[in-house]
């Protein structure tokens, strides 16, 4: 019933004497959000890169839209496939606007429409076009950069977008925000997404289906619910057992949006309990024994963080 957009048919990749992917078969349905998950060295990135032929398989076939990729002109093939890198890789010589409109322009889409689309997309991610369009990538924060990296991949209305661990270098808050963004874009445009990650939470959170990989093979492909409920083997079950993990504890206090609204510490001589470079986990430890702690904030000087405020943040974090 579901249409197959991409089919990996018994593909293998062997480097000299090292097999990275062996006899792997996988169908990617049109419009689905498929997450390839596995630890490093499981062959997930190699599998991903076979789709746009950044890596060519040693054996087997990759079928895109019913046609073997070897029959495509490489440029034509890749122009239909978006790509988001972990390193973001915005072109430093181009402005934000130029980066986003690069692929539509390569596809010879009308300039005026592209320009309007760039503005719309920027607004979509809460980056005012008037302010951001002409900035250079190095004038953006890491989170802003990856937002542009995502827009760049989706701008040309690609059939499929490949995402290679796009958020693993970002802190937990940014990661949640961008996960939400990708999810939103996926629902809005119905773009097929193949997403590679080693983070089980991310996989469970994003995937319509999850493919669990190990040693170059797929152990199980299923919906998140099925995988958690009926893991194919003990490896898969252990992998997901510790999921829904304690990410929130690793969040830096400096990233807490409520920081700006904290009360100023009335006692100017109060001892500083934590710098804002400390994590939520450290704050919880201190707040287990008392109701407030004193933070040294860059913006407002000494400020008071209450137990209630932190609990409120933690509860909202899961909703993001």
């Amino acid at each position, binding site marked *: 019933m579901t249409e197959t957009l991409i089919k990996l048919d018994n593909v293998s990749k062997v480097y000299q004497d090292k097999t990275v992917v062996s006899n792997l078969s996988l169908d990617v349905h049109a419009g689905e959000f498929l997450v390839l998950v596995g630890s490093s060295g499981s062959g997930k990135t190699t599998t991903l890169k076979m789709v746009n032929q950044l890596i060519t398989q040693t054996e087997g076939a990759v079928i895109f839209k019913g046609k073997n990729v070897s029959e495509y002109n490489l440029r034509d093939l*890749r*122009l239909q496939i978006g790509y988001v890198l972990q390193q973001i*890789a915005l*072109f430093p010589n181009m402005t934000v606007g130029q980066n986003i409109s690069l*692929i539509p322009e390569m596809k010879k889409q009308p300039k005026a429409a592209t320009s309007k689309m760039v503005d719309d997309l920027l607004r979509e991610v809460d980056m005012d076009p008037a302010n951001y369009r002409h900035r250079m990538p190095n004038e953006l924060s890491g989170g802003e950069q990856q937002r542009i990296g995502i827009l760049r991949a989706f701008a040309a209305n690609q059939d499929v977008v490949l995402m290679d661990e796009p958020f693993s270098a970002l802190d937990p808050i940014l990661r949640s925000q961008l996960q939400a963004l990708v999810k939103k874009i996926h629902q809005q445009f119905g773009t097929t997404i193949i997403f590679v990650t080693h983070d089980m939470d991310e996989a469970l959170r994003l995937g319509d289906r999850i493919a669990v990989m190990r040693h170059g093979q797929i152990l199980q492909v299923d919906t998140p619910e099925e995988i958690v409920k009926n893991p194919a083997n003990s490896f898969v079950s252990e992998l997901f057992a510790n999921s829904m993990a304690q990410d929130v504890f690793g969040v830096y206090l400096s990233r807490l949006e409520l920081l700006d609204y904290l009360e100023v510490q009335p006692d100017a001589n109060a001892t500083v309990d934590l710098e804002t470079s400390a994590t939520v986990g450290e704050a919880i430890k201190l707040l287990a024994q008392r109701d407030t702690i004193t933070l040294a904030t860059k913006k407002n000087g000494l400020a008071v963080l209450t137990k209630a405020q932190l609990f409120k943040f933690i509860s909202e974090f899961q909703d993001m």
Partner: protein
Amino acid sequence: MSHFIQTLISERYNLFNAILQHIEISLVALVIAIIIAVPIAISVLSHKKVAYVITQFAGVLQTIPSLALLGLLIPFVGIGEVPAVIALVVYAILPIFQNTYIGLTSIDESLDEAADAFGMTKFEKLTKVQLPIALPTIIAGIRQALVMIIGTATLAALIGAGGLGNLILLGIDRNDNTLTIIGALAAALLAIIFSALIYVLQKGKLRYSIAALLLIIAIPVGNGIYHAVQPKQTTITIAGKLGSEPDILINMYKELIEAKNPNTNVVLKPNFGQTSFLFNALKAKQIDIYPEFTGTVLESLVKVPHGQRDTGVTPEKLYGYAKKDLKDQFGFDYLPPMEYNNTYSIIVTKAFADKYHLKNISDLRNIESKLHAGFDLEFLNRPDGYKGLQAKYGLSVTSQSVDAALRYEALRSGKVNVIDGFSTDSQIRQYNFVELKDNHHLFPVYQGAPLVSATLAKEHPAIIDTLNVLAGKITEDEMREMNYQVNVKGKSPAVVARNFLVAHHLLGANQK
């Protein structure tokens, strides 16, 4: 300081031309180096070993001393702008190649992967991603090359390519430090200005940088096209050795030829270099005419046939020998000489000459004990120099060796009371010194005459004819006066040459 400004004003025309020449040579070399180095760097991007070999090779080229490189090139491409540009290109390739290669290879791999993943062709990747990102590094290499080229280009004057090196050499020749300093300063300023210009461009927007780069390329190319499409005229190239005298003479040749032959375009290459350069250039047909001395021809240019005696003969006979030998051995035409004899000369102050009634060199014998001579080292050791004075005149004086450029100053300040010099030196006129007559004919005859290439003599005999009006003209006094006008009074050689021709009705005499 006032002397500096005075020199600057009197030499402004020369300086301006030299700067233009300097810029042209430098930019042409730079553009060629860019055209060679950048594509090579791009094409070896994925061949590490080849890139390494090229870098090493370019490095070795760069260790060749520039003077040696210029010398090595002469047998292959002759002299003038071509070898100069080649040598400069050789030096400029390394920094440009290296920076282009490093700039392109040090681009983040993820950008490379992104460009591939987006479906860019190799060319798109190169023009949209790699070159723009590497541009600052590439331009830094170009800047480094340009500064080096502008500095090294001063040596180009040694092989007749002109430029600011001419002023430096001229300054050394005239013992005029101011001129040397002006030349050196101008070269340094040029390097700083161009370097700053490129720096500004580098900071600017990409499209402006490219536009400016194209503009820089367009200047020499445009100049070349302009020269190429100009209506074909008979072009005669006349060169002269370093110094005011040859410069004045070739300006006279130009006036005379152009007055009689309106369709002829005469190109002058003043201060072209030393005797051997000019002679080789004439052989290589890079120049058509240059003034040469009879004495020099017989002494160092031709092989003197067995049985031909060059000493103790009349000037007419000497010219005859020179003309015949040049014709036989090289096919050159040697036109009749002018009157003046630019040979060694024994010089004293007017007061000294008056006091002891000195007219001839032989008169010096009477006051031998009072003489304190300042002779140039070469003169001291030449058989037709001081040794000849001893043998032919029986003169024996206490003498010290004085640098050629400092002799006149030594005589003027009274440190010495007799010196050697050349009969047309402007200082004789400047300080009103007295030249003693060589009454025993010790010194060889050095008469100047136009030396003409075989082709020109054959194809344009009429043009050559126009130069013959100078035969037997210009006395030593007149030549000295003209040198004085240029060297001391700061007049341009062209004006001095023209004034002489007009005053002696030589321009009119030839026109019909």
